[in-house]
């Protein structure tokens, strides 16, 4: 059971903790321009800014609030881990940040442009800037590895030829192979995706995300369904990609060792609120025990 001193070490975050321009905008500030599908302006260190994000699910016995107005910002090139107990809202926050789940309130700014209110082509253009790696690899298992990686080019308007590697342009095939090479699986390009191990599948999913040429990578518990060795390999891969390309990384993890080892900063969620937001250096896993303390366990 966590001690009160461990809980005390978890810093409760308020919006005033963040310097202006990092944390997002004040509620009355003008909205940033919407994503228009054009090349992003040279900017701004803030890659992702989330302000007042709320998510409430209506239900027959009353509404369930999963996110209670969270604020955080991620700088370009930064690696941020979102940690917290089951049901704390980690995955919901990540999905709301890309509007895979529609937020009930709040704002999400990607690359300096708000994605709230976007629809159709503009929303797709905004999403194309972010590679998303899921807990389950979410590959089309009946297709080949190379076809799956090529699907990453669909985000860039690659067209129907990228539905299958058989029809893809030579340069796209070569690029997909290069992405596979980056994750160490170039020799499995022709294999069907359902013939891969869990770790290999997750690396193919990362290659598919790289095919998008993303400005940022989101990963929702990317190692949770893998054995410890494969999970470590996947996290090492993220670390290597970061060091090679400086890509921004936001990942959700239950593994505090991964969060501390592979993130520059930790955001701790508890009951839909951010209760911790600080640099990972100097944090000990025991310091985070309070995140996992249930309400019933409290005296």
């Amino acid at each position: 059971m966590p001690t009160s001193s461990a809980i005390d070490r978890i810093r409760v975050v308020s919006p005033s903790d963040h310097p202006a321009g990092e944390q997002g905008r004040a509620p009355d500030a003008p909205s940033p321009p919407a994503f228009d599908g054009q090349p992003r302006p040279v900017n701004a260190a803030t890659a992702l800014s989330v302000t007042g994000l709320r998510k409430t699910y209506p239900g027959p016995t009353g509404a369930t609030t999963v996110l209670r107005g969270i604020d955080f910002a991620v700088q370009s090139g930064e690696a941020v881990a979102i940690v917290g107990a089951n049901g704390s809202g980690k995955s919901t926050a990540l999905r709301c940040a890309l509007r895979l789940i529609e937020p009930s309130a709040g704002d999400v700014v990607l690359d300096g442009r708000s994605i709230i209110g976007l629809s159709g082509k503009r929303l797709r253009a905004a999403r194309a800037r972010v590679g998303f790696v899921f807990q389950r690899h979410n590959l089309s298992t009946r297709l080949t590895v190379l076809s799956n990686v090529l699907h990453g080019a669909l985000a860039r308007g690659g067209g129907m030829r990228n539905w299958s590697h058989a029809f893809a342009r030579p340069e796209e095939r070569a690029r997909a192979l290069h992405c596979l090479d980056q994750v160490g699986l170039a020799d499995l390009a022709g294999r069907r995706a359902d013939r891969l191990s869990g770790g290999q599948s997750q690396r193919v999913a990362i290659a598919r995300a790289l095919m998008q040429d993303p400005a940022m990578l989101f990963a929702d518990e990317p190692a949770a369904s893998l054995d410890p060795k494969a999970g470590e390999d996947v996290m090492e891969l993220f670390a290597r990609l970061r060091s090679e390309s400086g890509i921004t990384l936001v990942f959700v993890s239950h593994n505090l060792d991964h969060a501390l080892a592979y993130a520059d900063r930790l955001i701790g969620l508890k009951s839909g609120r951010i209760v911790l937001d600080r640099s990972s250096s100097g944090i000990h896993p025991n310091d985070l025990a309070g995140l996992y303390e249930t309400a019933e366990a409290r005296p």
Partner: protein
Amino acid sequence: MSTSDARSLPPRWSSPGLVPSILFVLFVAFFAWSLSRAGISIPDLIAGIPAMGTIASEMVPPATDRFMPMLNAVLTTFQMALVGAVIGIVLSLPIAVLAARNLSPHPLVYSGTRALVSFMRTVPDLAWALFFVASVGLGPFAGTLALIVDTIGFCGRFFAESMEEADPGPGEALVAMGARRIDIVACAVLPAATPGLTNAGLFSLEKAVRSSVVLGLVGAGGIGAELAVSMEMFRYDQAAMIVLMIFVLVLAVERFSAWARAKLLDGTAPKL
């Protein structure tokens, strides 16, 4: 509730309740009434046995005097079924996308498409054949049209259900990367729904072959017309040969269907 109550074993049987009991009694009563109206008569069955024996004896040996015309009619029947089923399957794919709850662009489109598919399925193929014979005249074209409509009614529903049951994960991954709806259908939904689509498609081919035999009875072309003529002329030996040919055709299609199913679903990656 005390601890001992909470830990006691549940009863082996639980009362079904008033409404299920009433429904069960109503079902039994309706079935008994249906039995009386179905015209089942054991004496008539027994009285008919000698006639059955006579017809069966006249069927042996099957006549071979019109073998080639019959073979040609069987071939026409199969070709009618093949064309009807394949065109029906191809047309069913976009219709199924509109009729799948998770893919349809609007609830009204979903409801409208589902209603259309249900209508095509619930009207019997024989009724469609009569409609098309009256519209385009006697012959295989009317039968083929009837089979196309019947296949859409069947495949439209089962394709849509396969698409609804497909693993949503790959589709979610494509949504997250900003892919278009058509990309998601082609790259995530169709591959995931392949087993269901393959099963429904092959079954619809088998169904079309069986249907195409019957459609000839109303003038929609194929071997059915030959069978009707043979029975009306009391040429049971010719009828026996036609039945044998139909049996071989249906068996061959079923065997091919089973082989293709295994090859497509369990084999290596289909060549694209």
